[in-house]
Structure formats: structure tokens, C-alpha cells
């Protein structure tokens, strides 16, 4: 049974149809890539799934719950987390705070017990702290936990954003160009990290990426979008050979890649 079902959605901005009849079904623990040229509508798909935009036509279901038009924070509570193409961290807060914020949506204590530091809250805060440190350790960011998030190198900021998304306890993780701006070594580490995250946290991952090495290397299934329309879908081998994809996106050389 699928965890996410994007059922033929269409979104218009004024007269422009950004995404048309987009269909996507994700099974639990799948790792799926979404590729396509710039402006194809990939990020728009992400924005619809996370509630930033609401589709003009048809609906999106997450674990059989209709999430169309729901506010982003409610969708996050249901278990969808994402990262952004241009990293969006709380730049003036510490690395540690950036992760701890991710746990806020599951906070049990009420406002008064948080202000006056009742034992129940203090215990909860301690738990959040421990879990955050654990997460930071996984990406090797623990030693700079008290630095400002904005002062980290770009590659580490991307990792931190993934960790923050993980802190919300998602079932589905959407990664928007996780390898952008990373050097080859970092990209290699990232690929391992994404697979490890999927296994450790039992996640379904959908990722947008331009780096074909990443997409072909880790995705089990790939969807190709062009001008808001799905032009191909299949496993990496099929996609690599698909003449339409080559024409629209990969280019001729990719055949030999």
C-alpha cells in the first residue's frame, strides 16, 4: 500500500500551468528521484506535497489522509519533512538549536510548564537535547554545535538541514537538490548518508537532483518531468536509455555515461 499518492494534480499560476496531471505513488521505504530541466516544475511538486501551494485540480493523499490544502505545519505533524533548494536554516541560531527546533512539533508540555521549567518540561527538554546531539553526531557536526548555523560551510549547512528535517520524525522525506554546491567527495559521502538515513529511520525518500551520479547511483525509481508533464518513469537503466529523456534533459553524451 502506498504511503504517498499524488493523484493527477494540476496547478495553475494565473494562465500558466506549472504542473499538469502529475501522478506519483510512493511505497514505504522507496527511494525515488525526480529529475528534469530547470523550470520543469519539480520544486512546485514539492511545494504542493508540503502544503506551501495548493493544487488547482485533484488531490494528494498521505497514508490515505487527504492533505490537499492543509497548512504546512499540519502536514509536517503527519510526517512529511523536506529540505530546500536554497538552504533555509535559522542562520543566527546555533547548530544545536536548529536541530532542537525540529522536535518542537512533538512537544507535550504546555506553555506555562515551559516558562516556569516544571520537572516534566525539564525532562522533555533533556530528552530533546540528547536526541539532537545523537543526530548531530551522525553527520559529524557535534563539535560545532554551538556555532551559528549561518557560519558553517555550505556542504555542512545542507547536512544540517537534513538533520533538522529528520528531527521532526518524518515518514516521508523530500530532499530538494541535496548535492547542490557539494564537492565530489562530499557528494559521495552524501549518497552513503541518504541510504543510511533511509535504513536507520525506516523512511521513504523522494529527491530532486541534477547530479546524475547521485540519482542513478541511489534511486530505485526515477520520474522525469518536463514543462510540468511527466515524460518518463522507470528504473535508472530505463531512464538512461529513454530517447525522450535524452532529448529533453540528459543530452546525447549521457548514453555513454
Amino acid at each position: 500500500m502506498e504511503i504517498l499518492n499524488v493523484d493527477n494534480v494540476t496547478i495553475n499560476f494565473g494562465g500558466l500551468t506549472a504542473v499538469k496531471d502529475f501522478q506519483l505513488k510512493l511505497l514505504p521505504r522507496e527511494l525515488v528521484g525526480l529529475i528534469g530541466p530547470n523550470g520543469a516544475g519539480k520544486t512546485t511538486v514539492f511545494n504542493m506535497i508540503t502544503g506551501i501551494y495548493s493544487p488547482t485540480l485533484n488531490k494528494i493523499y498521505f497514508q490515505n489522509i487527504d492533505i490537499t490544502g492543509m497548512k504546512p505545519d499540519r502536514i509536517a505533524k503527519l510526517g512529511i519533512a523536506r529540505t530546500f533548494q536554497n538552504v533555509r536554516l535559522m542562520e543566527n541560531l546555533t547548530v544545536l538549536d536548529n536541530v532542537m527546533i525540529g522536535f518542537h512539533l512533538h512537544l507535550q508540555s504546555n506553555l506555562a510548564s515551559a516558562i516556569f521549567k516544571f520537572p516534566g518540561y525539564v525532562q522533555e527538554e533533556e530528552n530533546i537535547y540528547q536526541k539532537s546531539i545523537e543526530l548531530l553526531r551522525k553527520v559529524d557536526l557535534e563539535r560545532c554545535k554551538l556555532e551559528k548555523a549561518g557560519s558553517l560551510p555550505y556542504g555542512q549547512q545542507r547536512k544540517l538541514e537534513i538533520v533538522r528535517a529528520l528531527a521532526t520524525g518524518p515518514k516521508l522525506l523530500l530532499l530538494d537538490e541535496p548535492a547542490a554546491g557539494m564537492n565530489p567527495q562530499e557528494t559521495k559521502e552524501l549518497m552513503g548518508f541518504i541510504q543510511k538515513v533511509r535504513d536507520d529511520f525506516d523512511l521513504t525518500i523522494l529527491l530532486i537532483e541534477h547530479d546524475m551520479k547521485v540519482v542513478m547511483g541511489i534511486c530505485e525509481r526515477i520520474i522525469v518531468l518536463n514543462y510540468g508533464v511527466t515524460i518518463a518513469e522507470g528504473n535508472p537503466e530505463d531512464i538512461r536509455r529513454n530517447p525522450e529523456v535524452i532529448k529533453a534533459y540528459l543530452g546525447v553524451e549521457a548514453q555513454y555515461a
Partner: protein
Amino acid sequence: MKKQSEKIYTLIALIILVLLVYLAQHRLDAYKLRILNIGAIYVTLGVSLNLIYGFTGQFSLGHAGFMAIGAYVTALLVLPPYYKEIIFILEPLAWPFTVLQAPFIVALFLSGLLAALAAFLIGLPVLRLKGDYLGIATLGFAEIIRIIANNLPHITNGALGIKGIPEYTNLWWTVGVAAVTIYIIKGLIHSSYGRALMAIRENEVAAEVIGINLTYHKVMSFTISAFFAGVAGGLFACLLTTIDPKAFMFVMTFNILAVVVLGGLGSITGTVIAAFLFNFFLEYLRPIEAGFSFGPIKFPPIPGLRMVSFSILLLALILYKQRGLMGGIEFSWRGLFQFINRLLAKKKPTEGSAS
């Protein structure tokens, strides 16, 4: 162990504060006490505005309005019924205010609650706006409150205002309320909810996507901020003993805003220091206005020169300290000891070279 000793330091500091308040209340003349009282009220106002503007990042200019609500509620509650009958000459005071009377502390609390209620109602629609637009909307709200106060003579006595309010406010009250405000707002900031507020300030979209309910958190911050502004308004009424709508013009809001920016957005310590400095300068620059001689050059008395020189001071400060007096840093015992150590360390090398 370390936390323990910090608690002891805090306790000692509080005892010293109580002693200082006691001394000031008994030794200082009325003029100096007035400045200190207003300074302490500005601490409450500034710290509460810092919560919504500095920590939550929502540009609110409605503080004078919330103060006005608090001031009128307190005034109407602490005045004895027979006296209210005498001063309401434009129109008789409307029931139930004619019979209501409450002790000062209850009046202050209710002032805060009513201001908070107003903030809740106005915040729900208005906090959807961002940046300057929110500023204009909240400024408009504050002006509406003032104009309502001007035009509801059977509740507020209109433009005549309310006079003869008992002078309950003293340094115990103002410093006490300021301390409680700091304690609660600091407690809020250093909690998961506080982190959520700062996350909204830093990046609204990201905050929403990681599950922070924007409306709930913004309205919560706005309401708490207004609560303390209302209480400060009540203190203000019982300090000046006279209130009228003109006291709550938008200049009041800008004074508070100046304190917050001067102290540094997002720094409670900075706000506290700036609140007192602001009021000291405003008062001690008065001699300039009276005319003075600078060597052979004689300056004639020019009315308004005080505000001009004050503005120049503000300009200079903002130019050289863009992030405020404290630069966003908070007071901590560790920070203080490090600072002292550094001062001592600077002296040491000279001693070393002498020996």
C-alpha cells in the same frame, strides 16, 4: 555544582537589588524617584516589545494602545466610586464602572488581561501581515484605541482624561513588575516555545515546514507582549496620577521602540540598560535647553534643543553600535567573570614587565 553557584550569585544580586530599591525609595527625592520609576516601567515595556519584535521578528507598533487599555482599566478600578462621580463631568460614568473597585494588584492584573484580550482579537487577523505592513496595521490599532478613548466620555471622560488617580506606584512596584516581566519572558525565550519564536523570526517558511504553527506562536507572543504592556500602562497611570488620550500618542510607541533598538533586538539585558539610559539622558539633557555658555560663546535658551541633541546622540549610537548596546548578547555570570578576567589580564603584562 556550577548551576548551583550561579543560583547563589543570582540570589545575592536580587538581595542587593532589594536593598538598593529600599535605599532609593527612602533617600532619593521625588524627582529622581520619578526618573527611576519611569525607567523601570520602560524596562517592562521594552522587554515586552522585544519579545514580539526582537525575538519573534514581528514589527509591532501597537504598544501605546495596549498601554492605554491598561492605564484606563487600572484608573477606573482603583478610584473610589464617589470620586468617579465627581470627575466625570462631560457624561456620567457608565455602569458597571460606577460600582467597580479593586485593589491595585488586582487592577494591574486585569489591565494586563484586557490588553492581552485586545491583542488576541487584533492579532488573529493582523499577524498574517508581514514587516512594514504589520507595523502600519498595529500602529493603526493603537491610534484607534486612542481615538476611542477620546470619544467615549462615559467611560474615559473623553479628552479631559482621568485625574486624581491615587499614587500607588512606587519603586517596589515598578522594579517588581519589571523583574517578573524579565523572569517570565526570559523563561519563555529559553524554552522550546522560545526557540520556535526565534525560528519564525529567522525563516518563516522553514519554521512552518518543520511543524511550527505560525498563527498560534505569533498570537501567543503578541498576547504575552501586550499583557505586560497593559500592566505597565496601569503602573504608568498610578505614577502620573493623571491620564488622558494624548499620553498614548504614537510617540510613546516610538520611545519604547527606540529603547529596544538601542539595547539591541533580541537582547533583554540591552533593553534593561537602554531603558534607564534613555530616560536619564532625556532628563539630564534639560540644562542644554535653558541656555549655557561654552567658553566665550553664549548659547541662548532654545526650546527643543534637548530633543535635537538627544536625537544626535541616538544617531551616533546607532551608527557605531548597529546591533545595539549589547550587540544581541545576554548577561550571564560566566560572561561577567570572563569580562572581569580579561580586564585583569590586560593589566597583568605591565606588572610583569616591571618585575
